[in-house]
């Protein structure tokens, strides 16, 4: 195996004292930006970039990618503890992570999340190691119709799985699409749905929506239920960290399935966000405990976290091998690559063997460093849950306000965020599902763009979605996932079983 040899050579580059130090520094900074909402991996990587100009390219990319791993892990922390997702890809982690933490098991929730995330990342790196050249070809086969089919698949696997009233789900989804459409239309360049407000031209960032819907909305629900009355007494318990990790192998199927979904969505540029939502939706449908999802199920944390990190890791592959950045962070890193005098693309694997394999080896080591550091911090973060609610509530409000503002230095965003808070409260109260709404805000415009570009290619014929084997398979799989619950429902109705009516499903 030529790849294995190159990898071993890569390890000799990555495992040196200066590079290990860089990894620790990068991971710690990454956890910091990940935990702070409003600041994400793109901010952190951009700010570190100038520092790397004097470095060797390998050292520079190790620092930046370590920061990326740290941010990915850190993003899950606030999702679980405060229901404020730091990154779009950790939105799905809030569905079960937050209920579990609120029930007094923050340590378990965090350890489960980090453990499964590490597994996902590991699978992603192994995939990169062995499939680097083959994967490049798959990604090249992706045009607009295939993109749309992948997004369609993500929607299909997620929508309709909740227990909410169908029409309420449809309304929530459509509102999400409309919000995603606000601002400049990327296909035609015209400005849409701004109602003459100039500040809306940049669009409504998902961060603003998510902080309001989940952060403020959840806070309102919590004060209404007098959450402060039952303070969460979580002891700092080191053993629980290892107990939670020890329970992970029991969910082996969920881990493998989620990692597969994540890798697939990372390589086909569906991205970590679509991957985590899709993985959660599929896990809910196929898990034995599917009905209890949303109330603090371990598998509800494992599924999105594993897929998120598997996708995040494998998404670096298209960047290296094709020069197509899969995420904002990857785009910034690619900028760095060019500044250091490297050209991303197929030739990178030939010309810059040391760089590529040093990076891949550093992904193994960097993720191990990240997991170790982040597990060490679990008890510290879990202790945050012991601060009285009266103190934590105004701090969460401030974090949401600052986070919404810092997205694009806009005061309007802060006001919008508060508005989303009221909407989140109202929707939660009346059992409108929030998850389809958020999913539509995050990938709605991308799906629309892909659809319209596909229509341009085919001159308006829908036949393009059945033009080749890849896209046909994707579309059919999406339709099957969409129709499956409908078919099950009809079967249930025909049997007239009363059990279904009494099923209590938490609406997410």
């Amino acid at each position: 195996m030529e790849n294995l040899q190159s990898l071993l050579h890569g390890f000799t580059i990555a495992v040196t004292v200066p590079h290990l130090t860089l990894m620790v520094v990068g991971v710690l900074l990454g956890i910091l930006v990940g935990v702070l909402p409003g600041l994400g991996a793109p901010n952190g990587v951009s700010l570190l970039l100038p520092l790397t100009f004097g470095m060797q390219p390998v050292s520079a990319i190790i620092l930046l990618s370590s920061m990326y791993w740290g941010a990915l892990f850190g993003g899950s922390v606030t999702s679980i503890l405060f229901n404020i997702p730091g990154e779009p890809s950790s939105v799905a982690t809030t569905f079960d992570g937050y209920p579990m933490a609120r029930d007094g098991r923050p340590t378990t929730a965090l350890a489960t999340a980090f453990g499964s995330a590490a597994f996902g990342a590991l699978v992603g790196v192994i995939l990169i190691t062995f499939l680097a050249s083959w994967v490049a070809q798959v990604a090249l086969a992706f045009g607009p119709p295939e993109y749309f089919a992948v997004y369609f698949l993500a929607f299909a696997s997620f929508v309709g799985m909740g227990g909410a009233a169908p029409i309420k789900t449809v309304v929530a989804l459509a509102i999400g699409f409309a919000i995603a459409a606000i601002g400049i239309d990327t296909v035609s360049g015209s400005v849409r749905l701004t109602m003459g407000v100039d500040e809306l031209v940049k669009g409504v960032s998902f961060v603003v929506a998510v902080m309001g819907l989940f952060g403020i909305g959840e806070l309102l629900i919590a004060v209404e239920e007098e959450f402060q009355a039952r303070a969460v007494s979580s002891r700092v318990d080191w053993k629980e960290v290892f107990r939670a990790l020890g329970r992970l192998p029991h969910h082996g199927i969920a881990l493998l399935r989620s990692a597969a979904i994540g890798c697939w969505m990372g390589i086909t540029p569906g991205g970590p966000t679509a991957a985590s939502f899709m993985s959660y939706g599929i896990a809910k449908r196929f898990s034995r405990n599917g009905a209890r999802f949303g109330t603090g199920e371990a598998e509800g944390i494992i599924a999105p976290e594993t897929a998120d990190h598997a996708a995040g890791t494998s998404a670096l592959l298209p960047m290296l091998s094709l020069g197509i950045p899969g995420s904002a962070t990857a785009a910034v890193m690619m900028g760095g690559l060019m500044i250091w005098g490297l050209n991303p693309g197929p030739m990178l694997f030939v010309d810059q063997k040391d760089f590529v394999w040093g990076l891949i080896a550093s992904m193994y080591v960097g993720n191990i460093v990240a997991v170790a550091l982040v597990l060490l911090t679990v008890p510290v973060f879990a202790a945050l849950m012991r601060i009285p609610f009266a103190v934590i509530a105004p701090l969460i409000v401030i974090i949401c306000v600052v986070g919404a503002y810092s997205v694009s230095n806009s005061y309007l965003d802060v006001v919008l965020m508060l508005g989303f808070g009221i909407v989140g409260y109202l929707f939660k109260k009346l059992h409108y599902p929030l998850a389809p709404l958020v999913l539509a805000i995050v990938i709605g415009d991308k799906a629309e763009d892909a659809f319209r570009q596909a229509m341009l290619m085919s001159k308006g014929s829908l036949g393009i979605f059945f033009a080749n084997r890849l896209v046909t398979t994707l579309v059919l799989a999406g339709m099957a996932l969409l129709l499956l619950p409908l078919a099950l429902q009809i079967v249930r109705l025909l049997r007239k079983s009363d059990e279904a009516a009494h099923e209590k499903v938490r609406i997410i």
Partner: protein
Amino acid sequence: MISRRALEIAAGALTGIFGVVVVVSSIDNGIGWSSAGVDAGTFPFLTGIIIVLGSLYNLGQGALGRGTLAMVRVAVTPSELRRLAGLFVPAAIFVAVIPMVGMYLAAAGYVFAVLALPKRQPVLRALVIAAVTPLALYVVFERMFQVTLPHGALAAAFGF
């Protein structure tokens, strides 16, 4: 006291109005198929129509008292409403004064007011938290990550 029926109707009306706004403003962008492909307004127009129709259905269901939550009559009791206002009103005031006094002063005042005035925390501890919060914001955002938070008209008047 707010009944669930009233809340359902309000939510239906709210989403419905949003739908109408989306429909109306997307007509300006053009709907349908032109030489440049699918027109920019088509998708928002369709989603707007779906929102309006769905909202009408939800509104009707709510008004008739049917649907998944039919058993729940009361949505928000007076004491719950008071607690909601207790969180939201100070937060809204905090946001409202940001353009004037800036993020740091507003945050400090907000924390102090929420913690000390209802006597939830001892005054001294409230003071400490109120002082540390903006300081932490300053160090992390302005210093470490160079994200400028609003300083407000007041600071501008003093030349900051």
